[in-house]
C-alpha cells in the first residue's frame, strides 16, 4: 500500500462523526469611510499612502516620494519613470539592488491594510527584492474584511498572489520592531 493510501485509510478508520459545515452567524467588521480607514490602517502596517488627484502624474508622485531612487523597475504601462523593465531581464537576480519597484494592486482590505497583488511580472522577486515598493491601487477597490476579500468572484484567478501589508518587518530581537528584514524597507500605496 502506498503511503498516500495508507494515510487515507487510517483517516477513514479513525474518522469522527461528520460535523456540518458552520454558517456565518455574525456581521463582520465594516467601515464607513473606506479611503480614510485604509490610510489609517496602512499607517498601522508601516506603509505610506498617497492620493493621486485628478490631473496629477503618477510618475511625479513616485519621483517626489523617492527622489534619491536611481533604479526604478516596473513593467506597467504609463510608468515612464521606470529605468528597468524587469520582464526583459534574463535572471531575476539582476533585480538585486533595485531602489524602487512599481506594481499594481488588485484591491485593498480595510480591516488590516493588506493589498492583494498577483504576479503580473515575469519574476515575483520584484515584489520583495527592491528597497522600496510602490503599489498602485484603485481607491474604489477596497473591501471591508477578509470574508469579502476571498469572496471576490475572480479571487482564485492567480498562479502566485500575495496580500502585502506594509514593509517587511521583524521583531525577532527582543521584540524590538525593525523595518526591512528581507523584503522592501518602505511601501507606498498610491490611491488612484
Amino acid at each position, binding site marked *: 500500500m502506498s503511503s498516500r493510501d495508507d494515510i*487515507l485509510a487510517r483517516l477513514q478508520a479513525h474518522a469522527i462523526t461528520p460535523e456540518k459545515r458552520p454558517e*456565518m452567524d455574525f456581521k463582520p467588521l465594516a467601515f464607513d469611510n473606506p479611503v480614510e480607514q485604509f490610510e489609517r490602517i496602512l499607517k*498601522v502596517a508601516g506603509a505610506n499612502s498617497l492620493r493621486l488627484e485628478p490631473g496629477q502624474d503618477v510618475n511625479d508622485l513616485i519621483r517626489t516620494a523617492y527622489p534619491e531612487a536611481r533604479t526604478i523597475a516596473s513593467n506597467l504601462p504609463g510608468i515612464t519613470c521606470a529605468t528597468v523593465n524587469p520582464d526583459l531581464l534574463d535572471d*531575476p537576480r539582476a533585480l538585486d539592488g533595485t531602489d524602487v519597484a512599481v506594481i499594481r494592486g488588485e484591491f485593498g482590505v480595510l480591516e488590516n491594510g493588506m493589498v492583494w497583488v498577483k504576479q503580473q511580472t515575469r519574476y515575483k522577486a520584484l515584489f520583495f527584492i527592491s528597497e522600496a515598493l510602490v503599489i498602485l491601487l484603485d481607491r474604489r477597490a477596497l473591501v471591508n474584511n477578509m*470574508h469579502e476579500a476571498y469572496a471576490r468572484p475572480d479571487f482564485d484567478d492567480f498562479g502566485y498572489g500575495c*496580500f502585502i501589508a506594509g514593509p517587511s518587518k521583524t*521583531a525577532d530581537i527582543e521584540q524590538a520592531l525593525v523595518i526591512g528584514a528581507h523584503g522592501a524597507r518602505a511601501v507606498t500605496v498610491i490611491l488612484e
Partner: protein
Amino acid sequence: MSSHAKAAEKFIADRERTAWHDQALYFVREKRDRMAQGVPEWEALREMASRMKRHTISRLGYYLEMFERHATANGVHVHWAKDAEEHNRIVYEIIQKHGGKRLVKSKSMLAEECGLTPYLEARGVEAVESDLGERIMQLMGTPPSHIVLPAIHVKREEVGKVFERELNTELDNSDPTYLTHAARKSLRQNFLHADIAMTGVNFAVASSGAFVVCTNEGNADMGTSFPKVHIAIMGLEKVVPDYDALALYVRLLARSATGQPSTTYTSHYKKPVEGQEMHIVIVDNGRSDILANAAHVNMLKCLRCGSCINTCPVYRRTGGYSYSYFIPGPVGINLGMLKSPEKYAGNLSACTLCHSCSNVCPAKIDLAEQIYRWRQDLDGMHLASKEKKFIDKGLKFVMERPSLFYAAIKAGRTAEHMPRFVLYNRLDAWGIGRELPDFAPETFNALWKKGKVKE
C-alpha cells in the same frame, strides 16, 4: 520532581532574566488583547473557526484528496509521508534529483518536528534558516524556544556576540536595527544563490489547490523567488475546505500570534512559474492517530499561532527550554503527550489550570481541560509522580475520615507544624519562598459545635 519543575528551577534562579522573559511575552499577549478588542465579532469568529475546524477534521480524507486533485491539476507534485523519516527521505530525494546543495528555508515547525535540517546536513545539503529568529538560533546552535518567536529568550547582546563571530558585525554593537540589517545583507546572498527553496504551509485550500504561507519578513517569498525548486511541507491538519474558511483563519492568525492585524506577507502559491518545480509533502507523523483520540482530537484544530504559549504564566516564567518537547506551553504539553507520554509526561506539571490558554485560542481548543484529563490518565499509565501519589493517598485517607481530619489539625497545631503526610518529601517545597499558614486555634467545625459562630 518533574522534568519541567527541575528545569524551571534553574531558569528562575536568574530572576532578572525571568522577569525580562515574562515581560517580553506578556507584551505580546497584551498586543493580542488589543487586536481582539478591535474586532467586535471576535468571540463569534473564534466559535466559527473552531466549528469549521471540527467540520474539516471530520472530513479530513475528503478534503486532502480534494486538495491533492486540485494541486496536481495546477502542476504541483504532491507527496505523502507517513512519518518523519519518510518526510525527510522524500525531501532529500527531490533535492538529490536536482543536484541541490544549498537549501534556503523559511520557518517550519514541521521541519523541526521531523529533524529535517540535521538529516540534510548529514547528507551534505546545507540548509539555511531565513527567518531572522530561526537564523539566530541556527547560528547559536540551539533549537528555537518558541514556535512563533524562536529567539524570544535571547538578549540583544547575545545576538550581537553571535553576529560578531558569524557575520563580522561591529564589536559590541547590539542595536536590533543594525543587527537585523546585517542579517538582511548576509541572507540576501543565501536567497540569491540557493538551489532549493523550502517553506512550510499555514493553510492548504482544498477547493483551489493553493497553499498559504504567512511571514512578516518576506523570507518565504524571497526564498522561493530564485531557485528552480520549491518544496512546501505541511502537516495534514493544515487543509481548509475553501476560501470562505480561509478568511476565518487569516483574520485570527496574526492577531492571535503577534497582535498584528495581519502578517506583512500572506502569500498564496498555486502554480509553479515556467521553469520551476513545485512540490508539496503532506505529512501524517502521528496526526491520524490523534483523530482516533476523542479526548484530544481538538489538538488537530491548532493553527500554531502560539497565543496559548504567550499567555501561559508558567511558560513566561520558565522559558521554552524547560519543556522537554520541542513545542512549549499548553499546546506543547498536549502535543507532547500525544507524541509519547513516556517521554513527555514531565511537562504536565507546568500548569496551574488557570485556563487563560483556552480563552485565547483562536480555534477554541480546550487546552487546559485536556491537561487536566492527561493528569487523570497518568496513574493508569504508571507515570504518576510517586510523591504526588503519596500526598494524594494521604489526603484521601484523612479526608474520608472526619475524626482523623480534625485530630490531624489538632496534632498539627500542638506540634506547630503540618501532619507528616503533608510534610513528606517535596511538600516542604511550600517553605521555599512562603511561610506555612498557621492553623487557627479552633476550626470552624469546633466553633459551630460550641455555638460560637451564632454568637
